């Protein structure tokens, strides 16, 4: 069916004049062809914000096109309209030169548009095959044939996957492959990827890029969203830059530097983090983990095994590690969301707190930022004022008797918004309607502004744009300078190397000795990180 359409299209392609837009033409082949995708005048408003305003650009067949912009610039909103999740208020979408209406993801897939979301929708207890079948519009009845196709497609694109494996045994990178393979099985002609690499290790990123290049060589177009400008430079043929919902520039990433692109994005001079002068070791020990062991919370997680760690005032300690090696449980154990077997396993300022709950530990000066922002760090359908209340009500005194002092939490929320440049119509906006990066800024800001004695942050700049990442990192550095102890759990080695005084590695539920960041090498850390969840070369032989 798809083939026929293509042939048919070729026939009258030549007759239609191409409008000139901001898109890049990567090859001269594109001149005589319609762009695969052409947007014009796309406008989409939400209450209080215009998320996209008159957005137009083109993506040629076989082009990898980047969509860049600060947090809240409207990137996700735009691609959701392409994939039929949101409906544009106005504007048109041209597919192979023909105007189309995309009322649903189903319709998008029928056109040949595939999308890989940042958050996977996979069932842990099911096999790869079952997950793929569940996500397809028409998987067909023959599961054996489907398994064969999965193997075929995944191998030919360098994404080895064993259809019989259960999802919970897979690393994050392998899980992402399922989503990609699911798209590939439907022979997409445009693949949309919203921040696909934020959860991947550098090796996995490399693999992903090979696949994308192969797809490109076959004529599949790719629309790629990322905040990692170096990746964009390496991978993309063209880029459209959004700011405040409008297209402000188009460029060829290969001819730009990461810095110049960041400047195009924020429209101002870009300020990088003031690195702190050498690790101070003066501070007293604020927090200690002593032989902390814990069974995994999720059925298939890894247990924490006798973790020893000490964190001093004034220092930033980084914990590197591939996702799924016990980071979630470690954070929960420190925060008090999960209680340790003995009180002495977690010690804060000399006090055994292992058996205390989160509220009690907060009172003692601990603030935490969990990895998942929607639904864990914030309640999506509550306002920012209420979300400020959520974690700060005790520490910041937003209560009068048993009642809420909403005025106080509102002004605190306003301060977070101002200090961390959270782009939102106001304090009464629902947290869930913020763009990913802006919600992250709000949550991290909310914890930092509580001036914690001890702060534990997972992925502080996850999905946050370069300028905002610098703001957050600077705030962490400044907080440490006031004597607070900070623990950063992250997959982002660059970030850890910029921020930390010492770095430890978590692998298979064990935490290595912390090493001074100034002397440790990336290779050393990389070696420690590669463990049970390292990517196997072949799915199964």
């Amino acid at each position: 069916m798809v083939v026929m359409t293509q042939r048919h299209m070729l026939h009258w392609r030549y007759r239609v004049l191409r409008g000139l837009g901001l898109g890049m033409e990567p090859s001269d082949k594109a001149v005589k062809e319609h762009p695969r995708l052409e947007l014009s005048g796309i406008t989409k408003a939400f209450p209080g914000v215009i998320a996209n305003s008159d957005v137009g650009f083109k993506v040629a067949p076989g082009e990898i096109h980047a969509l860049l912009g600060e947090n809240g610039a409207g990137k996700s909103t735009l691609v959701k309209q392409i994939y039929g999740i949101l409906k544009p208020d106005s504007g048109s979408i041209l597919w192979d030169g023909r105007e189309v209406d995309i009322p649903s993801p189903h319709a998008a897939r029928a056109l040949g548009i595939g999308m890989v979301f940042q958050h996977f929708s996979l069932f842990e207890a099911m096999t790869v095959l079952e997950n793929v079948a569940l996500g397809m519009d028409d998987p067909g009845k023959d599961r054996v044939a489907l398994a064969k196709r999965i193997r075929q497609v995944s191998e030919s694109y360098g994404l080895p996957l064993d259809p019989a494996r259960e999802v919970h045994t897979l690393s994050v990178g392998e899980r992402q492959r399922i989503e990609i393979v699911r798209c590939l099985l439907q022979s997409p002609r445009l693949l949309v990827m919203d921040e696909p690499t934020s959860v991947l290790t550098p090796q996995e990123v490399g693999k992903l890029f090979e696949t994308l290049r192969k797809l490109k060589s076959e004529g599949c177009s790719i629309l790629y969203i990322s905040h990692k400008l170096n990746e964009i430079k390496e991978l993309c043929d063209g880029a459209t830059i959004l700011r405040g919902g409008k297209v402000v520039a188009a460029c060829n990433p290969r001819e730009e530097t990461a810095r110049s692109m960041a400047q195009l994005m924020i429209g101002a001079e870009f300020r990088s983090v003031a690195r702190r002068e050498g690790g101070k070791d003066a501070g007293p020990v604020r927090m200690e983990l002593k032989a902390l062991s814990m069974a995994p919370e999720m059925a298939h997680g890894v247990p924490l095994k006798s973790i020893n760690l000490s964190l001093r005032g004034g220092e930033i300690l980084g914990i590197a590690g591939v996702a799924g090696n016990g980071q979630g449980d470690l954070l929960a154990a420190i925060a008090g969301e999960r209680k340790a077997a003995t009180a002495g396993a977690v010690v804060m300022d000399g006090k055994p707190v292992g058996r205390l709950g989160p509220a009690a530990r907060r009172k003692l000066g601990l603030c935490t930022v969990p990895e998942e922002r929607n639904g864990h760090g914030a309640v999506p359908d509550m306002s920012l004022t209420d979300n400020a209340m959520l974690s700060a009500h005790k520490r910041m005194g937003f209560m009068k008797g048993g009642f809420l002092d909403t005025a106080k939490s509102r002004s605190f929320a306003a301060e977070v918004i101002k200090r961390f440049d959270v782009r939102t119509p106001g304090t009464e906006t629902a947290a869930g309607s913020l763009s990913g990066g802006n919600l992250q800024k709000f949550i991290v800001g909310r914890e930092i502004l509580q001036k914690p004695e001890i702060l534990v942050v997972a992925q502080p700049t996850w999905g946050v744009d370069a300028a905002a990442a610098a703001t957050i990192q600077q705030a962490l550095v400044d907080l440490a300078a006031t004597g607070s102890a900070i623990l950063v759990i992250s997959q982002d080695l660059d970030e850890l190397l910029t921020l930390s005084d010492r770095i430890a590695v978590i692998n298979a539920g064990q935490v290595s000795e912390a090493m001074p960041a100034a002397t440790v090498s990336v290779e050393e850390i990389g070696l420690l990180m590669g463990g049970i969840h390292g990517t196997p070369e072949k799915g199964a032989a």
Partner: protein
Amino acid sequence: MALKIEARRQISTRMLYMTPFIAVAATVVAGFFLFMMLGADPFEALYVFFISPLETKYGLSELGVKAAPLIMIAIGLALGYRANIWNIGAEGQLTLGAVCGGAVALAFWEEQGLYILPLMALAGMAGGAAYAAIPAFLKTKFNVNEILTSLMLTYVATLFLAVLVFGPLKDPMGFNFPQSRMFSDSATLPIIWEETRLHIGFVVALLAAVAGWVLLTRSIIGFQIRTLGSAPAAARYAGFDRTRLTWFCLMLTGALAGLAGTFEVAGPIGQLVPNISPGYGFTAIIVAFLGRLHPLGIIASGLLMALSYMGGENAQINLSLPQAVTGVFQGMLLFFLLASDFLVRYRVRRVKPLAEGV
């Protein structure tokens, strides 16, 4: 052709608040056809059902009498439902409340005094709460589903009441009828509208709604309830104690249902009988949802459901339709509410299966 259900691209909050009205309208339309099929003049029947109860003093006062327990119970239920705690055994808690309040009334049968009613109210609340404590205990200790336990305990409660009125609490001078003595004047609720049965319980119900509203929107515990219901992981992150909240919600609902039960026997009924409630505890579930789990919405939906009881009675008397009409209307209302809620969030689409084979 196959049908497929799809989440809508965008859900408007306005529509979510509109659905109760859509549901009521759809119920009226369906009622029209229902009456027509039953051989009644549908216009007259709808008039008899929905309007005529509001035309008389008796009708208006009875509306309050029936709305009072519905509102009181629904307030408690709604708080629990907000926190994803699904107590559906309010009928049983109401029954136990009536038993306890009634027992106090009978114990002080020969006494007089202003202290008797408050004592009954306390006993009723304690009884209802104690009964709700069973599912709370099982839920928090053994993670037993409270939907099942609370529902099953309802049947136990009804039988327990029967045992009492057939046995120990039976009126010694009552010609062996299964009912208790009539309560003394001191154990009977004051009437707030002369020559009617409208009692002080209606005022208490309105106060409970306002208090519930303040609790839910202004207090820390209400905030915890809303958080727990909306994002359990975030509630844990904030350190809100799930076990404590489960106890709180179940006990509060139990107490309110128990109070409503006491008011029934101390008000319109005036004694303990085997059947004290025409299913108020279950109807209150509809009231809670129709009122969007919002205490003030519940006042409106409580009055509406009370009207359906009145309308059913009227239809029975004036049009000689079966009593089941009440239940049918309540059921239709819930059905249409759930259906329109669903259709606001999802849509049903016909899809053409693609050609077989690849």
